């Protein structure tokens, strides 16, 4: 007796599931960084070209395969060719790696969310030192937000060799994060389908609120102007194109098997071409939208820091020369400096050594990505806003929604092949399989809550998925076009959806996209081989250092 395959209640659930999976933390913390590094507004050119040439075709391919084969990644590729079931297994393994370390970000999000209900925010003040006459030295040397991240949240050790012990606070948050994931995937598509309504739409609400708040912040226009002024010469830089292609590729989450899993729960007559275009467009526009928000926040933070720096210089001058309080302002600072230099040259040259050179440009050009952006830069900007608790709660709630949405996709990629396989699903009910997966991933994920956990996280983040995904997607594309046969696939799709395949997709699948992926693959492989020593950033008491990985 065949049990019917569970289906999405309506096509909207499927679209929301894909959006919730594709729109993740990378849109918020990677794209703005790339935009800043590779020419601001002009980065949009390679980005959009890559979207049309690489993103949409590959996304459509994965959705079509999943919808056609109506099985998870292992079963789908085995159906295409029994020799290719390894591709499916590879996808499952990569998804497993990802889910292990990705949920730690949600744990950190929970940690910050729970700490946002205090007044003042714990990362806005430094703790006091032993005899209460000043602040803790590590906090003084760095900043209170960095101190809170590196010392209070991570309790980081100086190097990856020193493992330390499992920190119970992040461990508790990790357990909670996995319990929440389990709750959402417990019933399969039935529960996932309802949850994705929230995980897909709530981040947009928060982003919109932040957009309005961000644009009204003092100094936001500085950040926006800095980001969007196009630097056309970056178009000639091959790194810009490579990074655009890489960002599109990884942002859509291709190769993990999640898209195949989601599409396998579709009605066969579903118009996945339309959905592929919609999802990829929404993903890219979310990136651009998020970077507008990020850059207004950057501008605010940079302006705030610049003005604080100026005030410190003013205070230094006022105190050293006993000038009248309030006499020196930001507008007449240069004149006053000139006057003092001529009137009291010797004393001025002493004071000059202590004066910091304040520059708005240098504040804006500190480009940060990854967890540093999300947990340090943003929290620093938030602590300076009014009603900072509200903004903090909103922001970390949004991060959690984004992270959870991506986790749902990852776990679906692992669970769908497992529940499809008769061997396992006949012995254990669905709830038990999901429970086992969550338990195992949580147990292994405890590594990332150790004192050196963040270094392991960085390694996994940089190296766990890049090359494998490129290879997987390359083999997928070649398999569908040449092994299964593009004509056969075309007629399958026509029988399934009733629409003929556009010539554009055929050209992309058969020629352009594989070539693009091969060139990306060759570039990254040669980059790894040629780079002499692998480095990571270590936090040494109060500053970030580049330390090489001793093998």
């Amino acid at each position, binding site marked *: *007796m*065949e*049990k*019917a395959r569970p289906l999405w209640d309506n096509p909207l659930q499927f679209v929301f599931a894909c959006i919730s999976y594709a729109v993740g933390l990378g849109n918020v913390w990677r794209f703005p960084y790339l935009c800043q590094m590779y020419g601001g507004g002009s980065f949009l050119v390679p980005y959009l070209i890559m979207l049309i040439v690489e993103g949409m075709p590959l996304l459509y391919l994965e959705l079509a395969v999943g919808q056609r*084969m*109506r099985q998870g990644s292992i079963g789908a590729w*085995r*159906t*295409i*060719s*029994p020799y290719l079931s390894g591709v499916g297994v590879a996808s499952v393994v990569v998804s497993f790696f990802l889910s292990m370390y990705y949920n730690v970000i949600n744990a950190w999000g*929970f*940690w910050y969310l*729970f*700490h946002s*209900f*205090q007044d*003042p925010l714990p990362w806005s*003040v430094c*703790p*006091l030192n032993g005899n*209460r*006459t*000043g*602040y803790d030295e590590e906090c003084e040397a760095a900043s209170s937000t960095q101190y809170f991240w590196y010392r209070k949240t991570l309790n980081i050790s100086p190097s990856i060799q020193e493992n330390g012990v499992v920190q119970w606070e992040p461990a*508790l*948050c990790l357990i*909670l994060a996995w*319990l*929440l994931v*389990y*709750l959402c995937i*417990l*019933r399969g598509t039935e*529960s996932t389908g309802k949850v994705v309504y929230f995980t897909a739409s709530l981040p947009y609400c928060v982003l919109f609120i932040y957009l309005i708040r961000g644009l009204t912040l003092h100094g936001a226009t500085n950040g926006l102007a800095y980001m969007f002024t196009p630097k056309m010469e970056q178009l000639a830089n091959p790194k810009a194109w490579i990074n655009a292609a890489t960002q599109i590729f990884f942002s859509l989450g291709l190769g993990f098997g999640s898209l195949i899993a989601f599409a396998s729960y579709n009605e*066969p007559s579903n118009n996945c071409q339309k959905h592929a275009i919609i999802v990829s467009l929404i993903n890219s526009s979310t990136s651009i939208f998020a970077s507008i928000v990020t850059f207004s926040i950057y501008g605010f933070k940079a302006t705030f820091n610049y003005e604080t720096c100026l005030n410190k210089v003013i205070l230094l001058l*006022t*105190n050293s020369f*006993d*000038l*009248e*309080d*309030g*006499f020196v302002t930001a507008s007449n600072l240069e004149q006053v400096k000139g006057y003092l230099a001529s009137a009291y040259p010797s004393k001025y040259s002493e004071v000059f050594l202590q004066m910091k050179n304040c520059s708005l440009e240098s504040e804006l050009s500190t480009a940060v990505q990854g967890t540093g952006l999300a947990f340090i830069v943003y929290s620093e900007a938030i602590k300076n806003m009014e009603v900072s608790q509200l903004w903090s709660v909103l922001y970390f709630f949004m991060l959690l929604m984004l992270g959870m949405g991506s986790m749902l996709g990852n776990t679906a990629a692992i669970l769908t092949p497992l529940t499809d396989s008769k061997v396992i699903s006949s012995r254990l*009910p669905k*709830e038990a399989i999901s429970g086992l997966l969550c338990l195992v991933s949580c147990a292994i994920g405890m590594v990332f809550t150790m004192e050196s956990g963040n270094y392991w996280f960085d390694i996994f983040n940089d190296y766990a998925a890049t090359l494998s995904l490129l290879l997987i997607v390359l083999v997928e594309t070649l398999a569908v076009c040449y092994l299964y046969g593009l004509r056969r696939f075309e007629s399958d799709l026509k029988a399934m959806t009733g629409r003929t395949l556009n010539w554009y997709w055929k050209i992309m699948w058969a020629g352009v996209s594989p070539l693009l992926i091969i060139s990306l693959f060759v570039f990254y492989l040669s980059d790894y081989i040629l780079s002499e020593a692998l480095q990571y950033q270590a936090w040494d008491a109060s500053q970030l250092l580049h330390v090489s990985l001793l093998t």
Partner: protein
Amino acid sequence: MEGAENAFKVRLSIRTALGDKAYAWDTNEEYLFKAMVAFSMRKVANREKTEISHVLLCNVTQRVSFWFVVTDPSEKHTLPAVEVQEAIRMNRNRINNAFFLNDQTLEFLKIPSTLIPPTDPPVPIWIIIFGVIFCIVIVAIILLILSGIRQRRRKDKGPSEVDDTEDKCENTITIENGIPCDPLDTKGGHVNDAFMTEDERLTPL
């Protein structure tokens, strides 16, 4: 007196603290300051006889900053710095409030102020919120698992009652592409090839 052994430099930033409501620093304000210092000294043991005239100010600048020193009743010697420091630290709050200033805008150089530690509630707030959400999630998981088990038990009991009446047959029909599968199997007999299900058409290689 500037830089003398028991002298302290004081710095006020009135305009920074009060903005438009800043008052001008004149001799009356200096008198108040001397009074506050004398008051602080009188609270120290053995120094109850300190008068305002024992507090000396000098080198008042535009900043506003000046040096002060406290002499003993004979007016020959200045009081040791340690005592003055102790006295000022004890009464820092009163002195600040008299001038509407705080520790940052009324600075006594060389006298470190005691900083107020952030209040630590007995149970950290984050644990409370964590506990609440944790319990909600656990309860929701248990509810979902239990309802799943109950549903499955109901489904298992369902097919055993089907054989009694034909009406109940409708409830357990699973549909694949509009073609009912169950009636073919439960009625026994041969499977009609014309009613082949979609999945069987996808023959693997």
